[in-house]
């Protein structure tokens, strides 16, 4: 082993004697490069395979409607205006429910991150309430909030609240302690420690929590619209499922995932803006 090392070392050592030598950059092994077309190409190949399988009769149109049928169902939704109607209803519910849940969650999360009493009370409570499936509580939500919009806001709000609490509280927990201690030893007032150290330090974690909670809001809008909703993407998907209109069902699911993609992109923009200081 040492023999080899020495013989390797020799040739590299001798040219270095004869002046500076350009060194190849070896650190770029896992650097992320942008491949804007790769994702699109992957989607195109997948959709092509799917359509092809349907065309040659490998997949029955009942069990797996081809993309062309899904597209046709989607274009019907666009032309008869039902897409906009359903989208408007669902986006309104998501916006209100998510905002309520997030505000409440951040408030409680902050309290738990900063105050040790709040943490002592909050951690076991969150652990106890978080795993309750909100769907199981729907009959109770109907009794408490009725079948109008409030019960839908509540379903989404409760679903969003707990992940936000956990994300906020652990984000504050992971703000580097030495920074806080340094500020304290410099005699910085409590409020400016919070504003210039804790808040910016916790922001990446809180924003990551937004990413999760916005997806949860999208999942729960379907559950929320099980409660007597006339319009909404969730109600639309449920109805298509009940009627066994599989192409319409997939069109609705496609709209849901496009909503997810849009919200994800918006959050990325927000992240880039708010986390510029990094």
């Amino acid at each position, binding site marked *: 082993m040492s023999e080899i090392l020495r013989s390797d070392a020799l040739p590299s050592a001798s040219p270095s004697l004869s002046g500076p030598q350009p060194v190849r950059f070896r650190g770029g092994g896992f650097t992320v490069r942008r491949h804007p077309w790769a994702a699109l190409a992957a989607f195109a190949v997948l959709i092509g395979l799917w359509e092809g399988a349907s065309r040659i009769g490998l997949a029955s149109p009942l069990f797996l409607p081809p993309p062309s049928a899904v597209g046709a169902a989607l274009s019907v939704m666009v032309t008869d205006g039902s897409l906009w109607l359903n989208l408007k209803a669902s986006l309104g519910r998501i916006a209100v429910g998510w905002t309520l849940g997030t505000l409440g969650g951040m408030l409680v999360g902050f309290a738990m991150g900063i105050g040790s009493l709040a943490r002592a009370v909050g951690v076991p409570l969150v652990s106890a309430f978080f795993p309750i499936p909100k769907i199981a509580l729907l009959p109770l939500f109907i*009794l408490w909030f009725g079948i109008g919009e409030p019960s839908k806001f509540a379903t989404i709000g409760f679903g969003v609240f707990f992940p936000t609490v956990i994300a906020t509280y652990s984000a504050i927990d992971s703000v580097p302690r030495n920074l806080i201690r340094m500020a304290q030893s410099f005699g910085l007032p409590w409020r400016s420690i919070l504003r210039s150290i804790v808040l910016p330090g916790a922001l990446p974690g809180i924003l990551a929590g937004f990413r999760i909670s916005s997806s949860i809001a999208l999942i729960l809008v379907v559950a929320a619209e099980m409660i007597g909703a006339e319009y909404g993407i969730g*109600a639309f998907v449920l109805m298509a499922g009940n009627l066994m209109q599989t192409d319409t069902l997939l069109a609705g699911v496609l709209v849901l995932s496009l909503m997810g993609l849009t919200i994800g992109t918006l959050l990325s923009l927000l992240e880039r803006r708010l986390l510029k200081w990094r």
Partner: protein
Amino acid sequence: MSFTTWTRRAVLGGLTATLAATALPALAQTLEKSSVGVLALSSSGPIFIAKAKGYFAKEGLDVELKMFTSAQQVPVAVASGDVDFGVTGLTAGFYNLAAKGAVTIVAAQSRDEPGFPLSAYVATNAAYEAGLTKPSDLKGKRIAITTVGSTFHYMIGILGQKYGFTVKDVTMVPLQDVPKMVSAFKGGQVDAILAPSTVSRQVVADGAGKIVGWAGDETPWQLGALFTGPKTIQQRRPVVEKFIRAYKTALAEYHAAFNAKDSSGALVKGPGYDELVAIIAEATKQKPEIVTAGLPYADPQAKLLIDDVVNQVKFWQSEGQVDKTLEPKSVMDLSFVGQ
């Protein structure tokens, strides 16, 4: 396969099976395997009776009962080939599967018939006091149902056809399942619900509302059917014939025991009443007194109310929930029940 071949084979098969079942128990494994998807409800009674009393075995079939929890799942299971036959209520989802050539009605199941309390219109106390005292008053009210395209949705549709209003004249509130419906009803969120007899009676016993009528008395209709896949009819016609023969034997017994009326029109216990109630109670895992409270009417010959099924298809088409190109008569093949 010609007509005569399968008849002979069916007859021979039936004979062999009868022999096997009666004289030669050692040959019992020659029974042809088949399966049926059912809900654990009294309306599936004839299937439970045919299984428990060995009518399927007598026809040479080893029929496995697969339990499902909602009417939507059974035709899907038939379409995917998980079960050969299915018996449940007819929904818009069923007709959409029929439109795609996945299921075909071959015989009748239970139907809503005057004098048989199956599904009730229940009004909340507040709505009752405000004047919702008979089914025709439901026009303009908020009614909770399970889902869009369900049997309850159709019941509101035919009630409207009878009293001259359309589904647009009522506010249907789809709540997906019965617990949520009861919850909305008790919370006063709706004026009325359309619910199965057991649920309706429970709601009334809780003092939450009043029954203002029964769908059977107002609008008799074909609630459910026995169906199979068109492929099964093509490739295993003898199995379908044997299955329906056994089903009809049980159906006739069911009808005689539960649907008999005396001269005044009141229901009376027919022959074998207690034995059949015990079979159904065992299969549905319910108490006998609950079973006897909701035994639906079934035609003894398994004959279908064809006009009503045609009306159902047309209703769903007018609601835009079933493909308009579906020819109503194409959803059924009633050659097995001689209709």
